[in-house]
């Protein structure tokens, strides 16, 4: 479940920001983590909201990218759950269905953005880097 980059024992890796991605789409996970690696960002991948909730958030957590359509708990519910815990983690929501009410729900849950699939990976990368810069 973890990418190789996480196991790098390089001390520098300890200072790199971490981006969490929760999405069942392996292809997307792969390409995103490869691209983000190039920008000195560590990616941790999860296939479900539950998997994500079972992990320990690190202080270097910079951003969460989450797909709406997940098994069991959906991406927006996950975001609402995170908010209810009092955590502030800038979150970008992805969705493969272009549903306006879904977008509104995500934004009401304080998502910083809602992106419809398919999207240009570079747009997402730029957004993520922007979030990291602002942190």
């Amino acid at each position, binding site marked *: 479940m973890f990418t190789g980059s996480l196991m790098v024992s390089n001390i520098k890796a300890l200072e790199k920001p971490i981006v969490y991605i929760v999405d069942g789409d392996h292809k997307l996970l792969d390409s995103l983590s490869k691209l983000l690696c190039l920008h000195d960002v560590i990616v941790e991948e999860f296939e479900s909201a539950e998997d994500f909730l079972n992990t320990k958030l690190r202080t270097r957590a910079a951003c969460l990218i989450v797909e709406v359509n997940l098994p069991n708990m959906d991406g927006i519910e996950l975001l609402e759950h995170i908010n209810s815990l009092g955590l502030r983690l800038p979150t970008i929501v992805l969705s493969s269905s*272009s*549903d*306006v*009410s879904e*977008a*509104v729900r995500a*934004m*009401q849950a304080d998502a910083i*953005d*809602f992106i*419809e699939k398919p999207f240009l990976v570079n747009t997402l990368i730029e957004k993520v880097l922007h979030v990291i810069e602002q942190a």
Partner: protein
Amino acid sequence: MQNNQTKHVYSPPMVHVVDDDEAVLDSVGMLLDSIGLTNTCYKDAKVFLDAYSEAEFDKQNGCILLDIRMPFISGIECQHRLEEMGCRMPIIFVTGHGDVPTAVEAMKSGAVEFIQKPFREQVLIDSIQKALQANLKDQKQLEIIKTTQAKLASLTSRETQILEAVVSGKANKVIAIDLHLSQRTIEIHRAHVMEKMGVKSLAELVKVVIDASPTD
């Protein structure tokens, strides 16, 4: 100084409905009338913005229903102009031409809700009630900030200095040394600060000051 709690009576909020479709204005107006919400209808954003800038109503009390696609000025553009003018009323978008990017943009700019036509009446009513509650809370908050700021402004510069030191957790003794004053003088100033701010304890003083400081 004891009874300085503001006895502000809030006037009934106004729901502003902006839509270029007369049928919508009629039906929404009737719906709002039926549940006793005062409302005003505008046939486009320009008319509303003119009314707003001429202050034909209480500028902060109520909420705004905005259509997106309208002649001259779009709902989104109207939202931006209102923001520039310092409008704090919650905005609910009601549109028949909603797409995800527009909805996201509207929400990013601070809209509280984005409803697609056709909608169930109850959905609209619930959103309006929620928005009005948020607006009332916001107004109360503003009121508190204003009152406290007025109190803060009534302090002398020495008192302000001592207030800051006290709130940052310094003991009288330490403040006395820092300001080259006697401890007794600090105590007197401190008592004046408490009296002017209308508080009885240090904890209360800190709370009042924190509540009035701008939040993000």
